[in-house]
C-alpha cells in the first residue's frame, strides 16, 4: 500500500506504548479495597486485644478460606456476563458423595476425595453444557434448576443425616500446617496465583474478557465461545468440590444441608472485588482482597461476640457500597 495522492488521510504512525496516567493509576478500585481491608483490621484491633497478632491473622484464614476457592471461577463466570448459583449445592453434593463412597462403599479415602472432585467437575460440566445448548435461557434459571436438583440428589443419598468418621489424616486439609503456615492458606495463595495468571496472562483469559464484552463479535473473531464457557463452568464445579473437601475436613463430617447460601457469599465477594455483573470488567487481585475483607470482618466480629446476623448487615452494606461507588465516581468525572 504505497503512498497515493488520493489517499484521504496522511500516513500515520500509531503509538504502541501503553499510556500511563497517574490519576488512573490511583483511581483503581483495588486501592479502595486495600484501604477497607486495613480499616477492618484496625477496627478489629481496637475492639479486641487478641486480634492484631500475626498468628491470629494467619490462623483465622483456616476458618473462612474454604469458600474462597469458588470465588475465582465465579469471577470468570461473572466477567463472561453469566452467573452460577448452583455452587453451594455442588459443594453439598460432592461432599455427600465423598462421605458415602468412603463410609458405605468401603473405598479408600483417597479414592473418595478423587470421586468428590470428579462429581463437582461433572456438576459444573452439566451447567456449562446446558447453558451453551440453550442460549435463550439465562444462566440464572438454568443454575437455579440445577441448584435445586443437586441439593435434592444430596438429600436422597444421605437423607437428612450427617456422615463422617473420616480417617485422621483427612483432617490435615482443614487443620494442617506446613512450616507453621496453614495448608489452606498455602493452597489459597497458589490457586489465586494460578487463576490470576490464567485470566490476565493467557489467550484463554483474553477470550473470557472478549466474551463478556461482546460474545457475538467474539464468535465472529474465531473465539470458540461455547468451549470457553463449558470449561469455565466445569472449573467452577471442580473448585466447589475443592471447597467441599476442606469444609468436610474442617467439620469432620458432612450433611446434605451444608454450604447453603454459599453461592450468595461467593457472588458477593466477587462483586465486592470489583467484578462487574455487566461483564468484561474486574481483576482477580480485587477478589483476593475482598475475600480477606469479608473473612476478617467475620472473624473479628466473632471474637468480640457480635452475633453473625450483624455480619450480614455489614457485608450487605459493604456490597451495596461496592456497586454504588463506581457509578458515583463515573458520573462526577464525566462533567
Amino acid at each position, binding site marked *: 500500500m504505497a503512498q497515493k495522492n488520493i489517499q*484521504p488521510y496522511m500516513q500515520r504512525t500509531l503509538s504502541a506504548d501503553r499510556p500511563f496516567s497517574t490519576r488512573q493509576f490511583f483511581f483503581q478500585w483495588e486501592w479502595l479495597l486495600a484501604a477497607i481491608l486495613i480499616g477492618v483490621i484496625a477496627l478489629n484491633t481496637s475492639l479486641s486485644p487478641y486480634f492484631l497478632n500475626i498468628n491470629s491473622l494467619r490462623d483465622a484464614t483456616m476458618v473462612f478460606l474454604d469458600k474462597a476457592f469458588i470465588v475465582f471461577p465465579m469471577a470468570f463466570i461473572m466477567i463472561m456476563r453469566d452467573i452460577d448459583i448452583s455452587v453451594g449445592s455442588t459443594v453439598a453434593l460432592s461432599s455427600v458423595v465423598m462421605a458415602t463412597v468412603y463410609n458405605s462403599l468401603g473405598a479408600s479415602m483417597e479414592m473418595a476425595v478423587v470421586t468428590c472432585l470428579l462429581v463437582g467437575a461433572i456438576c459444573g460440566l452439566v451447567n456449562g453444557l446446558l447453558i451453551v445448548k440453550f442460549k435463550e435461557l439465562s444462566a440464572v434459571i438454568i443454575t437455579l434448576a440445577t441448584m435445586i436438583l443437586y441439593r435434592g440428589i444430596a438429600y436422597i443419598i444421605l437423607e437428612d443425616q450427617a456422615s463422617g468418621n473420616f480417617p485422621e489424616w483427612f483432617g490435615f486439609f482443614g487443620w494442617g500446617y506446613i512450616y507453621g503456615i496453614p495448608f489452606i492458606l498455602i493452597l489459597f495463595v497458589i490457586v489465586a496465583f494460578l487463576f490470576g495468571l490464567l485470566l490476565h496472562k493467557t*489467550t484463554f483469559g*483474553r477470550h473470557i474478557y472478549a466474551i463478556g464484552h*461482546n460474545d457475538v463479535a467474539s464468535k*465472529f473473531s*474465531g*473465539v470458540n465461545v461455547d468451549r470457553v464457557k463449558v470449561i469455565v463452568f466445569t472449573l467452577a464445579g471442580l473448585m466447589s468440590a475443592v471447597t467441599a473437601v476442606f469444609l468436610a475436613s474442617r467439620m469432620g463430617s458432612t450433611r446434605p444441608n451444608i454450604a447453603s447460601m454459599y453461592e450468595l457469599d461467593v457472588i458477593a465477594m466477587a462483586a465486592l472485588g470489583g467484578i462487574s455483573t455487566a461483564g468484561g470488567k474486574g481483576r482477580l487481585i480485587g477478589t483476593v482482597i475482598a475475600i480477606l475483607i469479608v473473612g476478617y470482618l467475620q472473624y473479628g466480629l466473632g471474637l468480640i461476640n457480635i452475633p453473625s446476623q450483624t455480619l450480614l448487615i455489614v457485608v450487605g452494606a459493604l456490597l451495596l457500597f461496592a456497586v454504588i461507588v463506581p457509578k458515583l465516581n463515573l458520573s462526577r468525572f464525566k462533567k
Partner: protein
Amino acid sequence: MSEYVLELKGITKRFPGVTALNNVHFKLKKGEIHALMGENGAGKSTFIKVITGVHSPNEGEIFLDGKPVTFTNPIEAQDVGIAAIYQHVTNYPDLSVTENIFIGHEKVHPKTKRLLWREMYQEAKSILAQLGSSIDPKREMGTLSVAQQQIIEIAKAISTNARIIIMDEPTAALTARESEELYRIAEGLRDQGTSIIFISHRFEDMYRLASQVTVFRDANYIGSWGVNEITNDQLIVAMVGREITQVFPHKKHPIGEEVLRVERLGKTGYFADISFSLRRGEILGLTGLVGAGRTEMCETLFGITNYDTGSVYLKEEKLQIRHPKDAMKKGIGYLSEDRQKQGLILQWGIGRNITLPALERFSKRGWLNERNEGQLAKQLAEKVHVKAKSVFDLASSLSGGNQQKVAVAKLLTADLDVIILDEPTKGVDIGAKSAIYEIIQDLAAQGYGIIMVSSEMPEVIGMSDRIAVMKEGRITKMLERDEFSQEAILAAAMSETPDKTKAG
C-alpha cells in the same frame, strides 16, 4: 413572522478536548426538505442534538419562527414541534405499532388517567393512512421490516405534532424501492408544510428530495446551496476539502488460479443451489435486494451457521466448517455487515481488537506476549491507515470509517486466502469509503480472493471483476465486466416475479 421556521446562528459546542461545532449556521424554511451533509465526525450528530435539546450550545442562538428559544432538555424541543428519527431505529419490538407510536405521550383520560386505547388506535390508523401505509396498528413492531419500522418512527413524529422532522440517515438500511417509498412520504409531509432536515451519505437521496443543502466539515460550517446550484464534484470538494478524482480505483491486477469453489450450496429456507468459483486476485461482487440470502450464504461459508447441502472446496480441499475458528484456520475470513455488534469490541482498544482473532500468533502455548501483540497491532493498524493516536485508543472513540479499517485489520492477522466483505462501506463517509476501496483493491493485488457483498450499485460496478446477482436465495445472473450496468443488475435482482415485499 420570519421567513424561517428554524434558524441557528453561530452555534458552538465544546466538549472536553474537542470542539464538536464551531460557529455553524443553519436556516430552515417552512415546507422545505433541507439536506445536511458532511463526513462522519463533521458535527452533524452534535448539531441534531443541539436542535433537539439533548445538548445546550456553549455559544450561539436558536430562533424558532424568528423568536429566540433555548432548550434545556429534549421534552422542551418536542413540545414546540421538533422530532428526530434516528438511523438505528429505537423501538419496542414486543409492543404493538400503536403503543410504539404513542409511547411517552400517551393519550389519557383527563380525570381518571385511564389510557385511551381506542382513541390512540384510531389516531394511529389515520396517521398511517395519511402516510399512505396500510400497516395494521395492532401488529407487533418486531414483525415489521426495517422500512416499515422507519414509517412507524415517522408516524410517531407526526403524532407529537412535529413541524420540524429530522431524519438521520433514514435510507441507510433500505433497498432502492423502500427508499422510494420513504421519499414519497417525505414529499407528502413537505407538501403539508412540515419542514424536514435530511441527513444522508447518499447523493441520490439529496438530489431526489432536497431543495437546499448545507455542508459541515470538521465541525465548521462550509456553506449552504440550492441543490440545483451545486455540482456533484463541487459538493464532494465541500465535504472532503479536497478533490477525490477517482472514487473507484480499479487497478489492473493479475487474476490467478482458482482458490474457492462452491458447489450447489443450500440451506433450507435461506438459499439453494449456489455454485460459483473465485480466483486469486479476483473481486467477486455479490449483490441483490436485501433479504436475497447474501449474508446468510456468506455466514455459512464462514461457519457462523451451517449449510445443509452442497460442498465448498478451498484450494481443491473439501472443507468441513463448523465454526468461524475452522474457517479462519483454513483460510476464509469474514468482515460482517454489523461492525458495532459483530465486528468489534467497542470497549476495547484498537490493538486488542485487531489481535483477538490471532492470539496464537504472538503467544506461546497460550501465554500472551503483550509486547509482540502491541507491535503486531501497530503494524496492521498502520497498514490500513487507522486514524488514531495509539493502539490503546478505544474502538468506540473512532469514526465509522476508522472502525471499519480496524475490522479489516483484524482479517489481516490470519493467514487467509479468501476474504468475504459484507457491505464494507455501509455507514461510512465518502473520504473513508475511498480509503476502504483502496484497501480492498490492494488486498486483491496481494492475491486474496475477495467476495464483496454490497447493495450499492455504483460500488459493485466500480469495484468488481465479476458480479453475481442473487434473488430469493439463488444466483440469478453472473455478469462479466463488459456486461456491467445498473440495468442488467436490477433486471437480474428483480426479474420476473412480482414484488411481494413492498413496504406498507
